């Protein structure tokens, strides 16, 4: 029986592991499917990570290294090249790797830190042919930054989420020509700094309220048809335009990887597509916690680390038997606020509630009610950013 098994050795898993160790628990195991720790940060070679956490502008690998170094210093056990196949509500984990084959581990507590995957073309039902040259932005990033190969030379990008913006710049720096970035919504969902540094600085046009309606090309992409969309996000006939290119990159949403979470019988939030958790990031199965992008898609890895620490500390408390669920307050939202994390409050202490809005708006008032009673109200002038949710 292992005290704490952490599934995923990316920023969430590593931060959680360190927090567990520093809270006094030693029997920890990190299970990571890749051949090294770091998760998606390994391929995020641009900088901008760690501004909040460390006051520095680090690249992805540098940020990851800060935690990997600590994991190594502390001697926290890690299994690399190991994929978890199953986890039961009783916390029996089945995993496989080349050296040991398929084996099981019984855990006293589990931290889910599996991150997320990208939405593929197929899920969007974009019509047209199925040639080579269509990639989700993260996959293209892997080819360039991890394998050292250029997936295309004339690029159209669908989706102005951060990954799409980063890849616009990355491909340009590698000598490709990014013809345009199309964004379905009338505003971009990427960080303002990325619009500036990835599009404006390279004169890459951003077409808001646009989408790709068809892909052309027999063996390799030869072009795409883009169209403007109306207020219902439906293509407007008459605005269809053929754009020659050999590559279509898709940055159209991240989906938390919760296949294992479902196997453990954990309740998921249909809006976040991640587990429903309390302020300690404990799921509906006692002793199983979740943190990072597997819980909900974060904007900055700094917040992932913060959340993972919360979870790690709570896990240590859980192991030591301390901590008591004194209350159960479910948080409901009105739709204008799309979701909150956590979705429930189980202790008596102060809680930080993070939320995402459904539509960007200015000059709003945030109201918090306890039943019918208004307990908190604040005006906010600042534009609340919208994220592309799964």
């Amino acid at each position, binding site marked *: 029986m292992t005290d704490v098994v952490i599934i995923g050795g990316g920023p969430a898993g590593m931060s959680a592991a360190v927090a567990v160790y520093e809270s006094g628990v030693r029997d920890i195991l990190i299970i990571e499917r890749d051949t090294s720790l770091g998760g998606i940060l390994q391929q995020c070679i641009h900088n901008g990570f760690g501004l909040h956490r460390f006051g520095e502008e680090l690249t992805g690998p540098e940020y990851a290294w800060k935690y990997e170094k600590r994991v190594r210093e502390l001697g926290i056990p890690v299994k690399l090249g190991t994929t978890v196949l199953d986890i039961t509500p009783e916390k029996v984990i089945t995993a496989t790797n*080349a050296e040991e084959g398929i084996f099981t581990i019984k855990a006293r507590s589990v931290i889910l830190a599996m991150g997320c995957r990208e939405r593929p073309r197929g899920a969007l039902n974009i*019509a047209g042919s*199925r040639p080579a040259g269509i990639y989700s932005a993260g*996959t293209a990033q892997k080819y360039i930054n991890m394998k050292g190969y250029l997936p295309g030379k004339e690029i159209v990008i669908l989706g102005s989420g951060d990954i799409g913006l980063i890849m616009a710049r990355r491909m340009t720096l590698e000598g490709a020509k990014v013809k345009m970035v199309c964004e379905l919504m009338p505003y971009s969902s990427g960080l303002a700094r990325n619009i500036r540094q990835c599009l404006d600085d390279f004169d890459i046009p951003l077409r808001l309220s646009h989408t790709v309606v068809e892909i052309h090309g027999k*063996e390799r992409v030869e072009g795409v048809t883009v169209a403007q969309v109306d207020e219902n996000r439906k293509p407007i006939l008459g605005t269809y335009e053929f754009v020659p290119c*050999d590559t279509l990159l898709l940055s159209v949403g991240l*989906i938390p990887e919760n296949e294992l979470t479902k196997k453990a019988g954990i309740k998921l939030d249909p809006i976040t597509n991640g587990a429903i958790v309390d302020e300690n990031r404990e799921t509906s199965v006692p002793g199983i916690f979740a943190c990072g992008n597997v819980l909900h898609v974060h904007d900055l890895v700094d917040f992932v680390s913060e959340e993972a620490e919360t979870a790690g500390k709570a896990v240590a408390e859980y192991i030591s038997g301390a901590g008591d669920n004194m209350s159960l307050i479910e948080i409901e939202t009105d739709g204008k606020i799309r979701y909150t994390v956590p979705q429930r409050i189980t202790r008596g202490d102060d809680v930080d509630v993070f939320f995402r809005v459904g539509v960007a708006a200015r000059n709003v008032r945030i109201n918090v009610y306890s039943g019918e009673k208004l307990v908190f109200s604040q005006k906010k002038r600042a534009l609340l950013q919208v994220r592309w949710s799964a």
Partner: protein
Amino acid sequence: MYDVAVIGAGVVGAMIARKLSSFDLKVCILEREHDVAMGASRANSAIVHAGFDAKEKSLKARLNVEGSEMMEKTAAELGVKYKRNGSLVIGFNAEDKVMLYELLERGKTNGVRGLRIVEGEELFSIEPNLSKDVACALYAPTGAIMCPYELTVAAVGNAMDNGADLKLDFEVKSISRIDGRYEICSGTETVKSRFVINAAGVYSDKIAKMVGDDSFTVHPRRGEYILLDKECGNLVNTTVFRTPSKMGKGILVTPTVDGNLLLGPTSEDMTDKEDKSTSEFGLSKVIREAGENVCGILFNKTITSFCGLRAVGSTGDFIINTPIPGFVNVAGIESPGLTASPAIAEYVAKLLEEQCVELNPKVDYNSRRAPMHAFREADIDEKNEIIKRDETYGRIICRCEEITEGEIIAAIRTNPGARDLDGVKRRTRAQMGRCQGGFCSPQIVEIISRELGIPYEEVTKFGGNSRINISKTKGGADI
């Protein structure tokens, strides 16, 4: 020189080649694409039809029912998946009911077993998620589902294991008859054979013309499909059809033998034999009509859509004949082509016998091929035995479908070996899951590059110019 050259490595050509490889004949399969099963064989409804739909006394009807009876054994021999889940043709009104009774009679005439009309409680106990507007249905318990490209790959593999040659990237440009034998040229290579089987799908009329037979034409009829996540796989138990029209069997809702939910196909006559693109219009039609038949389809669980071109012959029936000595047409094999394929193979063998081809059974013929999905279905102890012998089976490459490196390597090394990403995909299911290869493709490219000894950037999606990568990056790593 070969005894028989089979043109076309779709399911029909594959099953014919397999049958002929069981005799003392030198067989070769000529295929224009980079892999087998590249035509309709990889983009169809994957149904083993019961046989009530085909017109009475037609060749389609006879070979459909025969094939339907043979398929379970064939699937077991070739180690491919097969599930007899039954078919339902649903009706909404009195007019539909008349059609269902017609199909019932037709089915009986064709020799289909177990057909009956079901209504009310019985109907909804067979299929609880049908639309509440469904009034009645024809139930065909002998209907089944299987994986058409898995069957094609296995049949070609089995033929090769029994001595048949496979020539890929061989597009037949001309056929001449010289000294009582055929010379088939691709432009860069010539194959000589005593007999030729024309199983060239949408191009079978073009091939027939090369030997002077212009008695029929074949035109493509497009069918678009939408595939949903395995989460939706048990929404229906049977394959749910609507009443057919003259354009075909209509849009169906069916579980696949791998556990996904498949919707489609549309039916649209085309002129371009190369155009396999889906359309906004077609995909919307699939969504609309599928939703009319079955409740609770979660369209947001779509993982991909695709399109196939049926080879529709101008005679309205299968065209299996011998226009000139030694040349057999197997043309216009639209639905129920997959179902009929084992029966077509027998029928063609008999045709050759009538042409005085000596069909001496091969002494060491092995009709069996080991299932390629065996590892996936083994229990943990069996898997660990395999991993002890070969550690690559302990390493997961495709997370969504849980496919190991060992299975991918086997797909590349086992007849007919995969040579590109799509080839690996069709043989192993790697890249067929939720992320559609987003995570695993860069790894699979590496495995293909290593196994075939080709540079990473030359690995393609499906041959030709479908390269995944253009070049190394400026500071490109040495892989």
